[in-house]
Structures are given as structure tokens and as C-alpha cells.
């Protein structure tokens, strides 16, 4: 994670340059450097005693110190701040004095920027580094620090700034290490190792380079290189835990949370004052669902470093856990906010239990139980749970045996299908687990989307014109580099398109090589194989063959649609008569966009018969596309407007099977089926609607009636339970109806319990009284 490159800041830029300084400044710089060395060797008490003397110097001679001497004071105080975080404020003061004494002291400015970043204050870091670069735009330490800052803020330009720094100073150790980190972020571990080796060549004793090299070797499974880097590091820095910190963070990045937590534990044992290592341990324990232990580690981290915004946010979140219910069964522990735990658990238990059985069989793997399922009513809370900060774009996350996702009540998340989201995340639990967390992201995401589509018509992503356009423009990554589509996106929409692309890759493998091939791939990854090796071993293809095969698959599957959407000439004049519109559409019958435009224009002219003809042609050209702005949406409108209820229902039904539909469209579909008396299909449509919005009491009541009418007693009970769970104003009526549903289902014990709840609320409720008497009176 990004945090590591901040944590290293202090230790990578401390050694002060000495040429050109006055004798006194030189003396103080030498002394602070010596103390830093002493600290790094593990002689911390002696080093801290020496650092303390700098405070005395500041207090007695501040008016006579030079800019460089102020920097030496700031460095000393920063080290003392490890044990007393309030001292960081004094370090800031010393840096400010250093800059005031010499505005051209760029070293002081960069150090100050780094300190701000170390304390998670990116805004001040940005100001400080911008000022440094304004003084000298080619100052390499400032370029590297600003690259770090931009990466921290997820701002564009971090890579190009770093490249510029490395052009100016190719053997910059901190630059090469940062480059290694950037490459590791996109899972190019071989490239990262090359950069770390180059850094070590220039600075064989550099702490950050050694620590990161060790971490890279661990993730790559290179135990010899790992041992070598560790040995070298511990000889130089015997009481520092940066190897463990870097390793834990990198393991966490590749989703090996248990290993990350264990390595972080070792780090915390070695250096109990490395607050970041406590925080990283806490974050990974939380990912594993061990809330109590995670909280202890995070509290230690935050106590030691109250500037750690990740630790603070996460602790704040943990403080709200008292507002959640924990509901445990044989397979799951659901953690859901009390206000909605009853309603959501009602569906999640059923849905995820089905998912568990399905995946257990399919992937021949059983996760440790219970799987922890956390549902967040606030997207910001979910975001903090996932990355420690607000603002994440995803709706769900799987850490393996812990999954978390937004509640459908999370308004800040926007409308989404919470059922398919839960299903998607649970699939990760099995693909991560069965591969010992070694499955690459493309396969895990691809399988999850593939599983969504297999679970339910309309779930999971489906093909869109933008996907076909990206394919046609050769913007999609080839199959053998599918992971790049997720971790090195070349354009803003690429990650979203990659989910669908990866799922198609899984579909192709299942179709051409059989479903067991997907399981064999997971097992091969478990054994440590690379994607190239996995494809060669399981699919008997080399990378080029894999790419060709997938390309052919996409062309076979979408070739016709691709041709139909490639011609975007669809201009239609506003006042063109209907016959002319039709003639224009007929002239280019293979142009999807033109058929759509003409269809819409004909609807606007209320010529529904002709509109339907033209839109049917559009549908035939691209039948897989169910987006509301496509042919299906227009056809439904035309058929509804012309009174063709049967046709509208059939079209909307087909559309619902092609992708996610808004809540209201599911309700419309239910109404259309009800108008034709088809209660089973109406109930299906309403059930689908519940996965967009489960909080509408009226729809649960409708569904309960439909199930009761169709004799589905189990689901009638479920819907009556849902009404009760939503805490209607008329609790007594809701409980009474639940009691009736139980009685109809033959569950007299629960029927009596529910009717007692009704009468507890309304003792004179006549119908409930009669039901109670019927339930307690002995049968003749």
C-alpha cells in the first residue's frame, strides 16, 4: 500500500550533505548524522540522548543558528518524535526557521514536505514541495518527493515526475526505490526487483532499498534473495522493522492478508515503536475478520502516531460496530446495522447459503467457517473498511474469508444490485481461498462476474457498445496480459471494461476447455505458477495462442454486432416525415444506430407500428445489448404506448435477462405480467426488484400475496417476515399476516408466536384474537 513509501521518508533523506557548510553547521550536521547512524544500529538510548542536545541548542541559541543548523535540529526532533508524537510540531517549527533563515535552502523545504507527508498532511506537503520546485524545477529530491505526494493523493503525474528525476540523476537511490514501488503497485515484480537491485548497486546500505528488495523476494517466493536482503539489512539496522513493514504491505497488496498480519506481528515484536507496522497488522487482522485483535493493534498504532489518518478512520469505524447486529449461522456471520439487519439478513442468508453450496461444489474447496459478511449502510464507512479512507469507487470487497459491501440503503453509493454484489464477493472467497490467495486479479474478477451471470439472468456485466468499440479500436489488452487491464489501465474506463472482458475469457475457457480447466488454473496458481505457466500447463497454449484464441472468440461472438455499431452515421432530421424516416432506415439496414434513431423519431411521432418494425431490426443486429437506451427500451415504450401489453412484457422480460435494470422497470414488468394474469412471472419480477431496493413495504406485501396465491408458502412467509422487519406503522397487522402465513405453511408454533406479537401491540385486534383462539383451542 502507499503508506510504506511515506513511512520510509524520514530514513531515506536524513543524511545531510556537508560540503560548503560553515564549521559550526558542519559540526551539527556531522553530529546529527552520527546520532542517526547510532539510532539505526539500534543504540537508540544513546542516539536519543544526543538528539536531546539539539533541543537545548535550539532553546539557547536559536537566534544564532543557520538554516542548516535548524535542519539538523529538525532531524533530531523528528527522531525524538517517534516516542513523543507532539515533538513533530517542534520539527515543523525548526524547518520553518530553516526556510526563513535561507529561503533557498531547498533541502529544508523538501524535508519539510516529506515530514508533512509522513504525518499524512498531503495538502501542506503539496504547498511546500510546490514552493521548492518553483525555486528550482530540476531539484531531484523535490521531484521525487512530489512524485511520492502525487501518488499519495492519487493525482496524475507521479510517474512522469519520477522519470524526470531519474533522467536528471539516473542512480538516485530513493528514486530507484520509488520506481520499484510504482512497478510493484502494478504487480510488475520482476521490473520492481530490477529497480531495487539498481538502487542497491548505487547505495548498498540503503535501508529502504534493502527492505523493499527483501519484500519483493518474499512475494516472488525467492527465498534465497529474501534471506540475503534480510541478512544485509539486519546487520546494518538490527532493531529496525522496515523489512517486516515493507513485506507486510506487499503481501497485503497481493491479498495474502494472513501472511501480512504475521509478518507485521514479527515487525512489531522487533520494533515496538514502529507504529506503522502496528497499523498494518491491525488492517490485515481486520481483513481476516479478527476485529478485537485488529482494534488492539490499531489503538497501539494510533497512540504512538496520532497523525495516522488510516488508523484513526478505522478506529472511528470500529467504534460504530456497536450499532451493528452480528447474526451467526453454520456458514456465515453477518454484521449488519441494527436498523436493517432483519430485512437484509432474511435475503442474504438464503442467497449466500445457495452461493456457498454452489461454489463449494464448483471449486472443490471449503472455506473456514464462518465467513464474515459485513454490510455498510454508509458508503464512506465501507470505503474506510476497505482502504482506510473515504472515496473508494467499488461497492464490495472480498478479503477472502471476510467480505464487505454497501447496503442498498447506502445512498452515497447510488442504485445497484446488492444481491449480485454479494454473490460476486462470495465467489472471490472461494477463488481466493482455493488458490491460497495466489489467483491474479483478472481471474478472480473474471470468475466473479461469470458467476454472477450464471447465478441469475440479468446479473453481472454484459456487452455494451463501448466494449465493442474498445475492442474494435484495439484498446483492450490481450488475454495473456489480462491483469494489466485492472492494474495498469491505459484509459479511464478500462478497469470497468476489464471486468467484463475477464468474465468473457472465463466463459471461453469453460466452453472450449471445460469448466474443470478453471479449477485447474486456480490450483496451478496455488502452486505458485505464473499466468504464462498456468495457461501452458492447463490450456496447452502459449501466450500468443491464448491471445489469438480469445480474439477469435470475441469476433465469433460479437462480429455481427460489431459491424452493426461501427457505422455511427445516424443523423435524422427533426421534421422528416415518417415514410422518409423508414426509407432512410431501410437504406442502411445494417446500421444499428440509424435504426435506433429512426425508431425513436417514429415513437416521438406516435407511429408505434413502424417504430416497432425498425427497432426490431436494431434488436436483431445487436440482440445481446439490453441497455435502456438501446433497442429494447424503445420497443417496450412503443409496445406499451400501442397497448401491446403482451409484447411489452415479453420485450421487457428479455431486456431484464441481459443486464441490470432500474428498480422501477422491474416494477413495470411485474405490472405488465399481472395485467395478463401471470402471477409467477410477476413474482419473479418483484423478486428481482428487491435486489435493487428491499425497503419498499408495499412490494413485499404484493409479493406475499402473489406467493400465497401461487401456493409458495415458504416464500409467502419470507415476504411477511420482510414486512415485519421493515417496522411498518401497523405492526399488529403485519404480525397477524405473518401468523396467517405461518399457519398456512403448517408452522403453528411460529404462527402462535406471531399472533402473540400482534396482540401484544393491539390486544383488541379482533382478527388476531380469533386466530389466537383458533390456534389454542383444542381441535375437535
Amino acid at each position, binding site marked *: 500500500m502507499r503508506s510504506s513509501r511515506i513511512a520510509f521518508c524520514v530514513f531515506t533523506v536524513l543524511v545531510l550533505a556537508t560540503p560548503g557548510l560553515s564549521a559550526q553547521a558542519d559540526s551539527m550536521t556531522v553530529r546529527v548524522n552520527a546520532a542517526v547512524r547510532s539510532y539505526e544500529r539500534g543504540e537508540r538510548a544513546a542516539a536519543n540522548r544526543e538528539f536531546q542536545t539539539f533541543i537545548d541548542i535550539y532553546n539557547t541559541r536559536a537566534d544564532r543558528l543557520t538554516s542548516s543548523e535548524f535542519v539538523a535540529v529538525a532531524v533530531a526532533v523528528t527522531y525524538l518524535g517517534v516516542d513523543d508524537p507532539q515533538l513533530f510540531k517542534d520539527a515543523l517549527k525548526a524547518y520553518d526557521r530553516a526556510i526563513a533563515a535561507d529561503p533557498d535552502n531547498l533541502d529544508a523545504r523538501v524535508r519539510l514536505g516529506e515530514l508533512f507527508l509522513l504525518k499524512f498532511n498531503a495538502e501542506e506537503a503539496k504547498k511546500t514541495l510546490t514552493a521548492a520546485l518553483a525555486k528550482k524545477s530540476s531539484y531531484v529530491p523535490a521531484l521525487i518527493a512530489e512524485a511520492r505526494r502525487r501518488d499519495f493523493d492519487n493525482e496524475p503525474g507521479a510517474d512522469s515526475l519520477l522519470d524526470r528525476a531519474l533522467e536528471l540523476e539516473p542512480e538516485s537511490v530513493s528514486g530507484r526505490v520509488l520506481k520499484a514501488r510504482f512497478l510493484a503497485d502494478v504487480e510488475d515484480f520482476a521490473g520492481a526487483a530490477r529497480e531495487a537491485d539498481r538502487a542497491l548497486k548505487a547505495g548498498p546500505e540503503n535501508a529502504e532499498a534493502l527492505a523493499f528488495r527483501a519484500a519483493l523476494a518474499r512475494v516472488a517466493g525467492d527465498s534465497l534473495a529474501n534471506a540475503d536482503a534480510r541478512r544485509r539489512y539486519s546487520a546494518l539496522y538490527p532493531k529496525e522493522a522496515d523489512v517486516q513493514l515493507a513485506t507486510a504491505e506487499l503481501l497485503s497488496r497481493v491479498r495474502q492478508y494472513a501472511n501480512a498480519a504475521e509478518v507485521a506481528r514479527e515487525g512489531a515484536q522487533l520494533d515496538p515503536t514502529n507504529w506503522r507496522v502496528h497499523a498494518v497488522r491491525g488492517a490485515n487482522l481486520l481483513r481476516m475478520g479478527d476485529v478485537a485483535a485488529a482494534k488492539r493493534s490499531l489503538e497501539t498504532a494510533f497512540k504512538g502516531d496520532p497523525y495516522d489518518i488510516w488508523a484513526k478512520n478505522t478506529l472511528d469505524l470500529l467504534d460504530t460496530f456497536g450499532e451493528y447486529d452480528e447474526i451467526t449461522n453454520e456458514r456465515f456471520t453477518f454484521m449488519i446495522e441494527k436498523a436493517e439487519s432483519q430485512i437484509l439478513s432474511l435475503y442474504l442468508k438464503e442467497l449466500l447459503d445457495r452461493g456457498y453450496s454452489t461454489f463449494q461444489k464448483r471449486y472443490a474447496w471449503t472455506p473456514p467457517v464462518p465467513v464474515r459478511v459485513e454490510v455498510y449502510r454508509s458508503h464512506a464507512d465501507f470505503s474506510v473498511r476497505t482502504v482506510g479512507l473515504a472515496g473508494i469507487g467499488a461497492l464490495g470487497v472480498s478479503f477472502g474469508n471476510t467480505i464487505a459491501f454497501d447496503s442498498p440503503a447506502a445512498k452515497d453509493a447510488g442504485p445497484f444490485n446488492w444481491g449480485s454484489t454479494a454473490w460476486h464477493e462470495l465467489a472471490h472467497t472461494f477463488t481466493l481461498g482455493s488458490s491460497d490467495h495466489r489467483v491474479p486479479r483478472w481471474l478472480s474478477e473474471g470468475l466473479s462476474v461469470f458467476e454472477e451471470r450464471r447465478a441469475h439472468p440479468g446479473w453481472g456485466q454484459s456487452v455494451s457498445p463501448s466494449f465493442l468499440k474498445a475492442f474494435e479500436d484495439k484498446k483492450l489488452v490481450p488475454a495473456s496480459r489480462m491483469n494489466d487491464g485492472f492494474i495498469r489501465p491505459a484509459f479511464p474506463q478500462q478497469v470497468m471494461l476489464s471486468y467484463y472482458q475477464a468474465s468473457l475469457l472465463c466463459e471461453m475457457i469453460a466452453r472450449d476447455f471445460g469448466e474443470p480447466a478453471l479449477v485447474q488454473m486456480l490450483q496451478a496458481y496455488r502452486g505458485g505458477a505464473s499466468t504464462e505457466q498456468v495457461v501452458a500447463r492447463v490450456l496447452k497454449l502459449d501466450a500468443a495462442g491464448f491471445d489469438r484464441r480469445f480474439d477469435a472468440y470475441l469476433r465469433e461472438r460479437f462480429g455481427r454486432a460489431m459491424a452493426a455499431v461501427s457505422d455511427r452515421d445516424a443523423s435524422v432530421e427533426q421534421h422528416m416525415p415518417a415514410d422518409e424516416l423508414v426509407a432512410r432506415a431501410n437504406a442502411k439496414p445494417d446500421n444499428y444506430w440509424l435504426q435506433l434513431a429512426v425508431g425513436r423519431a417514429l415513437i416521438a411521432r406516435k407511429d408505434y407500428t413502424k417504430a416497432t418494425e425498425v427497432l426490431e431490426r436494431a434488436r436483431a443486429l445487436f440482440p445481446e445489448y439490453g441497455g435502456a437506451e438501446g433497442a429494447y427500451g424503445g420497443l417496450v415504450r412503443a409496445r406499451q404506448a400501442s397497448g401491446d401489453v403482451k409484447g411489452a412484457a415479453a420485450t421487457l422480460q428479455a431486456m431484464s435477462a441481459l443486464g441490470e435494470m432500474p428498480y422501477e422497470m422491474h416494477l413495470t414488468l411485474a405490472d405488465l405480467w399481472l395485467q395478463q394474469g401471470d402471477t409467477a412471472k410477476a413474482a419473479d419480477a418483484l423478486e428481482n426488484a428487491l435486489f435493487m431496493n428491499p425497503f419498499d413495504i408495499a412490494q413485499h406485501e404484493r409479493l406475499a400475496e402473489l406467493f400465497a396465491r401461487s401456493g409458495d408458502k415458504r416464500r409467502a412467509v419470507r415476504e411477511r417476515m420482510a414486512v415485519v422487519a421493515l417496522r411498518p*406503522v401497523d405492526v399488529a397487522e403485519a404480525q397477524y399476516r405473518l401468523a396467517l402465513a405461518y399457519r398456512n405453511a403448517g408452522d403453528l408454533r411460529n404462527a402462535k408466536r406471531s399472533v402473540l406479537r400482534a*396482540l401484544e401491540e393491539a390486544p383488541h385486534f379482533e382478527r388476531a384474537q380469533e386466530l389466537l383462539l383458533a390456534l389454542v383451542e383444542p381441535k375437535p
Partner: protein
Amino acid sequence: MRARRPALVLILVLTLALVGASSNAGAQTRLVIVSGLAGAPKYAQAFSQLSNALAQAAKDRAGLPDSAIAWYGDPAGTKSRWHRGPSQRDTLEAVLGRFGERPVAEQLVLVLIGHGSGEGADTKISLPGPDLTARDFSRILGRLGSRRVAFLNLTSASGDMMSVLAAPGRVVITATKSAFERNESHFGEYFVEAFAKDGADTDKDNRVSMLEAFRYADAETKRLYDADGRLATEHPQIADESEVARLFFLTPGARARASGNARLNVLYAETFALDEQIQALRKKKDSMTADAYDAELERLLVPLALKSREIRQLEKGP
């Protein structure tokens, strides 16, 4: 000056109307609806509709005679058979002042509909002409002595009236929690709906108490804002006298119908005793196991159901 003369005439007429209504000895509740200055046609229409809907519900569903219902509204609004005159300060002072002369057993339900403003004791309902403030209402209601009163302020920015008007034995409901919630209020629509439609009678005793109406309207208002994805700009409140509000109805209860039938009187007394035991049991719920609680509840509810069945049969007659 000229404008005031017709108003004085109206006051006289209205006072007579109310006095006339008082001869109806059967009515136990007097409903006085005050709809304030609308300011714009759409509000004039909305306030009239709401006032009429409440009056209609009081008549049709709570069984109040027309003579027990009086509506004073903005002259700009449409009028109905319950309209007794303009909602001017002098008129209302006179009408409510006269109410103090009526038998103390008669209860007053005073409903304010319209725009509110001001703060603290100066919180007011906008009326044609001078407004009436919380301080004014406190003075007026203070003259009604120990009479049961429900003061229901459904206007915007009504929250501060609560602290001024809350009193023992008095039901006070406001549509907002403070003077700062000044946006158009929807609570009133749902509060009226509670009496006009099914759904609010949650204890199934075939009548809607003030507490039930409040809870219904509160829940529906929240639901409205949730459904629209908006942050609520109104937070209704009820005076901390829930027992009073739970037993305050527009209409008298079924027990009143028992008079003259000895068996019914006994049955009502027994069901009343069982009601009390059930209420007492509910208070002990948290200290009991679920099974023990349900067993005890069933022990009380079964005889209550049997007695209620007998009451229904007796009331239905042979």
C-alpha cells in the same frame, strides 16, 4: 378601519354558531381547525383541502356531528360546510374564549394548518391580519382550566410552540422540532391521513388516538424524505405525555356503548382489568425470558379474546 367592520359581524355569527352547537349534548369532542394565511393560490388550495379532509374524516370516521366541527380559514381559500368564518385573530380569540364556558367534560381539539414563523414564545401562525403567537395560545388555553385539550400545530417552523404550550394533561404536537425548520411541511398531510384512511389504528381498537396519528404521520413523513433521497427538513414532536395522547381520541370509545347492559358492563370491566395486566406485563418484558413472557401473555390474551368475542356478540344483538 373599514375592513374591520364585517369581521365583527362575522364574530357575532360564529359565536352564535358555536353556542348553537353546544346544545348537542351527545358530542364530547369539539374540533376547531384554523387554516392560516395562504399567501399563494397553491397554498390556499392546499390548506383548504387539508382542513376539509380533516373535517370530513372527523365526521365520517370518528362520528363527530357537523355541529362539533368548526373550520376558520383564509378568505382566499375555497369554503365548505364546516367553514365558520375567516381565521382572523379576533375571531379565533372570541371563539376559543367562549369555549371556556362549555361543560368541562367536553374536550377541545385545536388544529393549526398553514405557515409558521417566529421563535420561542413569539412563534406564530400567519393569519389574515394580526397573527396568533405561542404566547397568545398559552393565554387562551390557560383559560380552559382542566379541560382536556389537544393542541396540534401542523404548520412549518412550529417547533418552539412545544415548550410554551406543553402542560399536564394536554396533548401538544408540532410538525417541526424547532423554529428553524421553515420549509413547507408534509407532516400535516400525513397526520390528517391518519384519521382519513386505514392504517394508523395500530392497536386495532377501531379508533385512532392522537399518539397513533402522530406515529403514523411521523413514519410516513420520514418515508417520504427517504424515498426522495432528501434530508428531512421537518422533525415532528409530541409532548412527553404519551399516556395522555394514547387515550385521546376524536371519538368516544366503544365502552360508552355499554351503558344500560349489565353483562356488557361486567365484560368491559373485565377486559379493562386484563388490559391493565397486559400493560403491566409489557413493562416487565425485558426482565423475562422470551418463553416465559409469551406464556404469560397468552394467559392474559386468551381470556381477553374470549371476552371480546362475547362483547361483540352482545353488541350485535340477537
